[in-house]
């Protein structure tokens, strides 16, 4: 057993999983409240990544930033979260709210339209080139924890820690605050919540703000840890985030967290071991096969996901 490799894959999987979990949380929150698959969610992540790139470039670039590195990262996170939060609110207001009473296929198509609109807007504004955060210049990759087989770059630690902090913050918000209670009530029964005096529209807007802010933060974390961003990156992260949400149980917050980490670790370990397990028949290129196979298996065997509850309909 190659423990060095296992530990390293664990770290890689946790990093990827943290990002997927943040995306899955947004998917789950919005689905929980509106029963809508926000297919543009991955593209909100992409916009967040570009906001971060704008901030890092504006503050002198990675090679010579005009502020301390920690402050730069905080500013990038804040900028992307606020920017994407408002973007989410705008998407809800103009693309989904007018279709709230339409058949369920209509907002789904609208979501696809928003996705293409965001991709092409960023293409128009920033061009098609891959943009680099140049994080490797900002913080050298050798700075971090190096203990036995364990090598963790400090930026990975920042990414995993911030993702967990945000997940914990969201958990507290949903379980301990008035807004969280209103969100849970709206998700349970929108009409009954309205009759109880909850301003459902406001709750929906706030849910979109929070979900999109988390996607924006995920965009920054991707840019920081992997260096490069592009205008179509949202598709892949959106798809994997959605898979994570389904595996965890769409609509469930702990489910989204678990699903994200599960998919991240599955991806990392399949890259690491798929060749050995299939005796060379399949290579690392097939890691996505494993991820989406998990999705298919869950859709067939346990469609409600690990933390979800089966939907019971009164007849």
């Amino acid at each position: 057993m190659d423990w060095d490799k296992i530990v390293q894959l664990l770290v890689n999987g946790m990093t990827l999983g943290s990002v997927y979990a943040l995306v899955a949380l947004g998917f789950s929150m919005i689905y929980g409240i509106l029963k809508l698959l926000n297919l543009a969610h991955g593209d909100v992540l992409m916009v967040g990544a570009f906001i971060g790139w704008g901030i890092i470039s504006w503050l002198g670039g990675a090679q010579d930033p005009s502020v301390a590195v920690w402050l730069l990262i905080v500013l990038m996170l804040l900028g992307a979260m606020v920017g994407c939060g408002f973007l989410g609110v705008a998407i809800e207001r103009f693309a989904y709210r007018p279709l709230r009473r339409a058949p369920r296929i209509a907002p789904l198509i609208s979501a696809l339209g928003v996705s293409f609109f965001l991709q092409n807007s960023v293409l128009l504004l920033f061009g098609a080139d891959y943009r680099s955060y140049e994080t490797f210049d900002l913080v050298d990759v050798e700075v971090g924890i190096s203990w036995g087989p364990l090598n963790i770059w400090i930026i990975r630690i920042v990414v995993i820690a911030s993702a967990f902090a945000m997940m914990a913050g969201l958990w507290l918000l949903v379980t301990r605050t008035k807004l969280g209670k209103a969100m849970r009530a709206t998700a349970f029964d929108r009409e009954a919540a309205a009759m109880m005096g909850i301003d459902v529209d406001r709750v929906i807007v706030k849910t979109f703000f929070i979900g999109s802010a988390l996607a924006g933060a995920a965009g920054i974390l991707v840019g920081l840890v992997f260096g490069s961003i592009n205008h179509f990156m949202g598709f892949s992260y959106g798809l994997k985030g959605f898979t994570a949400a389904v595996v965890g149980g769409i609509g469930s917050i702990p489910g989204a967290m678990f699903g994200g980490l599960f998919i991240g670790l599955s991806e990392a370990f399949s890259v690491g071991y798929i060749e050995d397990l299939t005796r060379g028949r399949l290579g690392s290129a097939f890691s996505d096969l494993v991820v989406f196979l998990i999705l298919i298996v869950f859709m067939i065997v346990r469609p409600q996901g690990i933390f979800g509850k089966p939907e019971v309909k009164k007849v």
Partner: protein
Amino acid sequence: MSKGLIAASLGLLAAAVLVTSALARSEAAATPAQIAACTNVSLGFVGPLTGPVAFLGQEQISWLRFGVQKYNKANKTRFKVAGGDTQLKAPVARTVARRFVADRKIMAIIGPSESQAVRVGGNLYEKAGLAAISGSATATDLTKGRPYTTFFRVVPNDAIQGPQVVAFVAGNLGAKNVVVIDSQDDYSIPLASGISRGLRARNVTVSRESVSVDDTDFSSIVANVGNNVNVVVFATQNATSANTLSNQLREQGKKAIVFGTDGAYSPAQFKPRNGYVSVFAPDLHFDRKARALIREYNRYSKNRTFGSFGPATYMAGLAAMNAIARACADGTATRSEVTRLVRSTNIPSIFGGTLRFSKKGDPLPTKFVLYKITNGTYSPVG
């Protein structure tokens, strides 16, 4: 339904079929030997202007436009450039090829930039008698056996790159254990396979890995790279990916260095602490004789960072314009005439010597250039 309505519908259908077939026939008949008025001629650029390797296409079209402007000024011609974006996708490249074949003003294709775009468009250009001169398509099979008789390239092919990389990695670097990574496309898979075969033939232990062209995280691939691996050869068209890979190797404490193939050549994007890269044409920045040309280009373009992709495409443009100008000596020209004259190209090259084509359409004589990268700074090897 009334009989009249059925008859009318059938009549309309028949008319539509007749019109469509007539249009198709007129397009087919018009394409093989179009006669162009030499006062309104365009070069059709076919390359990835958007998508994951947009930097490559943008650099190429910028140098092509620069070359056209310079040529027009010197020769009082009025060549224009029409851009065709392949997005690095073969089906899109075929659509672009159809569009350019049908455009009467286009007398030569500059590109396609990518080998897969040649494979899907090469026969269309051939049927139309349209010369396609690529500044970067290096796959060996594009000229082996001459599958596309109107295809030419100004850069050497992978049959030269592969053995050169093998000789350098096994010989000069003395590597005993190598990982070869492809990026799951028509360019990198044959190249990576050829390099792997060559290295194994020299008793080097080789492991193969594969990543998607859109991937930005290679940390789990890096976990598969053993501590005894000396070199990771990365056949990629994406220089930022090569940069991320080299940094993630260092992050995980791996001693292996990255050797990037020609797609990774970008001093602005691929900046490892230690590494190598091969490229099909010398970087003009290292050539004193090219300083005036670089200054002129920098005045022309806002994008001052360039590698070898742009200048090679500049040469492809010059070859095309030279052939069209010769064909136009009597005031008119056909595409076939231009193609015939491209074959006999013999013009001074900005890389030194002259540009000539072999019977297969490859440049004569030529080889890949290797660069060593130390702390992000490039220097020619040998």
